[in-house]
């Protein structure tokens, strides 16, 4: 098992957001997590990736046979956990090229590899740019600075393609995307899918799941997964709305 979350409870500044959540993800699988606003979907992503201030008060997060809850965020990233941000951050003055080169070499250093030669890195960038149809000039600009909403999301997938994570979490990657950008992003993800990695796709809408077809769909409500099923669950949810879910969770 790649990811095994057991009875996870997460609090932010003393307030419990996730309340005893369980989730198992195997290699080669795509899991979708759906649910209304404020149910703790993004908090789950932050807890898995080790963001400061998200306090795990109970439970365990096992990744590749180790409990990672005490690990710093950069170490988790170096172990192959990637987060595609809902709101990618701007870093003025740091070019995408410089940023990604620093990231790749940090990850290589962690794995005991020498820095990637400049030529090889540039070749890799060119290759991955095509995957998400990213504009050449974008990589010379500062990280996310002046990028449109669509460009920012494509840029996240581009970074994912470069880093080749084992576990990728996509936090509302579809929000704010037009249909063309959505297709491009989905195409990028689908090309990266393999038997060796897994995806956790967090989304509000069923729309994204038409393009990135999940193996499992989980519905989150009030800090817990209240229902799991196949991809058909997403359709059912779309049809009946989250109100149906509330009744379900009370039942």
């Amino acid at each position, binding site marked *: 098992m790649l990811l095994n979350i057991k009875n996870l409870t997460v609090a932010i*500044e003393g307030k419990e957001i996730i309340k005893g959540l369980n989730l198992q993800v195997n290699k080669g699988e795509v899991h979708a997590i759906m649910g209304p606003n404020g149910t703790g979907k993004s908090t789950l992503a932050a807890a898995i*990736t*080790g*963001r*400061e*201030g*998200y306090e795990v008060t109970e439970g365990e997060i096992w990744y590749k046979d180790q409990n990672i809850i005490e690990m*710093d*965020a*950069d170490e988790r*990233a*170096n172990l192959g956990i*990637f*987060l595609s*941000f809902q709101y*990618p*951050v701007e*870093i*003025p*003055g*740091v070019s995408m090229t*410089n*940023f*990604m080169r*620093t*990231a790749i070499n*940090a*990850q290589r250093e*962690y794995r005991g590899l020498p820095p990637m030669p400049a030529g090889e890195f540039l070749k890799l960038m060119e290759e991955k740019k095509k995957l998400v149809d990213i504009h050449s000039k974008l990589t010379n600009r*500062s*990280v996310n600075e002046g990028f449109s909403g669509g460009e920012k999301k494509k840029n996240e997938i581009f*970074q994912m393609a470069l*880093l080749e994570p084992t576990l990728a979490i996509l936090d509302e990657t579809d929000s704010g995307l037009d249909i063309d950008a959505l297709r491009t992003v989905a195409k990028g993800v689908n090309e990266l899918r393999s038997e060796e990695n897994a995806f956790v796709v967090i989304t509000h809408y069923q729309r994204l799941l038409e393009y990135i077809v999940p193996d499992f769909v989980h519905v989150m409500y009030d800090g817990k997964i209240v229902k799991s099923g196949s991809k058909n669950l997403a359709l059912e949810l779309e049809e009946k709305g989250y109100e149906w879910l509330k009744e379900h969770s009370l039942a």
Partner: protein
Amino acid sequence: MSDQTNNNILDEVTKGEYKFGFYTDIENDLAPRGLTEDTIRFISAKKEEPEWMLEFRLKAFRHWQTLEEPEWAHLHHPPIDFQDIIYFASPKKKPQLNSLDEVDPELLETFDKLGISLDEQKRLSGVAVDAVIDSVSVKTTFQDTLAKHGIIFCSFSEAVKNHPELVKKYMGTVVPYTDNYYAALNSAVFSDGSFCYIPKGVRSPLELSTYFRINAANTGQFERTLIVAEEGGYVSYMEGCTAPMRDENQLHAAIVEIIAMDDAEVKYSTVQNWYPGDKQGKGGVYNFVTKRGLCKGNRSKISWTQVETGSSITWKYPSCVLMGDNSIGEFYSVAVTNNYQQADTGTKMIHLGKNTRSTIISKGISAGRSNNSYRGLVKIMPGAVNSRNFSQCDSLLLGDQCGAHTFPYIDTRNQSSIVEHEATTSKISEDQLFYCNQRGIDTEKAIGLIVNGYAKEVLNKLPMEFAVEAQKLLSITLEGSVG
């Protein structure tokens, strides 16, 4: 996330160590402690100076005695006892140096440790170096190569001996000894520095640089540099400096004068890394510097680029007097303060000629409990019609115990000129740090990356040889032991 978390991270990261704090044990020739006319006669005699130079020093000294230490800067330090300082220290074996073999191997090693090779065979590509330790220049490289182009590049002491007519003509014309308290002090006791003369129409084929090192204890360093570029001349000049770690404060009071004639251009770059004191604010160099350039000729250009990371106190305003019509002045600055460091730095742009232009880009970075102030004056005189100035002053705060201050003074005396001023204050956000961490970049590297990105506009103005050094220095200054 919570500010507390954020500050804890920054706290750890900003506890870096000073890497140049070693001391070289060399025998010194010292002046007696304290400052009297006798001290000045002693210095002048040691340097075998002509009578006119001694007279200049004595005039400056007598003027200095009438002055009070300025107190207008946003700086706090105990009073400096000017009688408790040694005003001259020179490595004892000071022969006439013709080749590197004659330089004390201890000194060579010192400069090697600092990453400055005085061996022309192992030189940085295209850089000539003048190395100054305490009060004397120990070696200037590539003098012969430069001489072929008619360029004079030597220590100030040599210039006094070999080119007295040039020194007499220009010294004190941009920064007179009456200029301010520290300028008067420097004019009285200045020790060594560099002299550079670019003849008409010559572009220097090498970058010129001076490396200053304070070594001896209880001594002050009073460097003096003079750069003259004749009509159409061009030179790019770099200056670097370090000092050992000591518990007591050391004084550094310098003067740099630049003169650019018609169509001449001088680029002056500094990476200032004097010992900043320890984490409790003990020790460190007091850096009081007067740097000024005179764009005397039409279409002349002087640009100052500085990366200030060292010194416990920095008081420094590299300025341009734009006298020639269509002349250009530029000031690009990154000033980093950490722990208990204090910096009050900026520039003055004095527009006298028509169509003169000036640009000011200042990036302040404060961490720890430090205070970082930008102080700048843009003055446009009635005759400076159609002049323009653009100023941008940004401050970046790391943590919540440091201070950033901006004191812009603008004085425009004609209707046709335009002055623009922009200022911002920002913090490194926890979002940015997490974004970097999530890609596998640790917090220390992330801060280095973000700070370098923030300062990029200025770092890009540095010569290649310096830019890489400066980037590392920015990271090191803010570096510490994370995790």
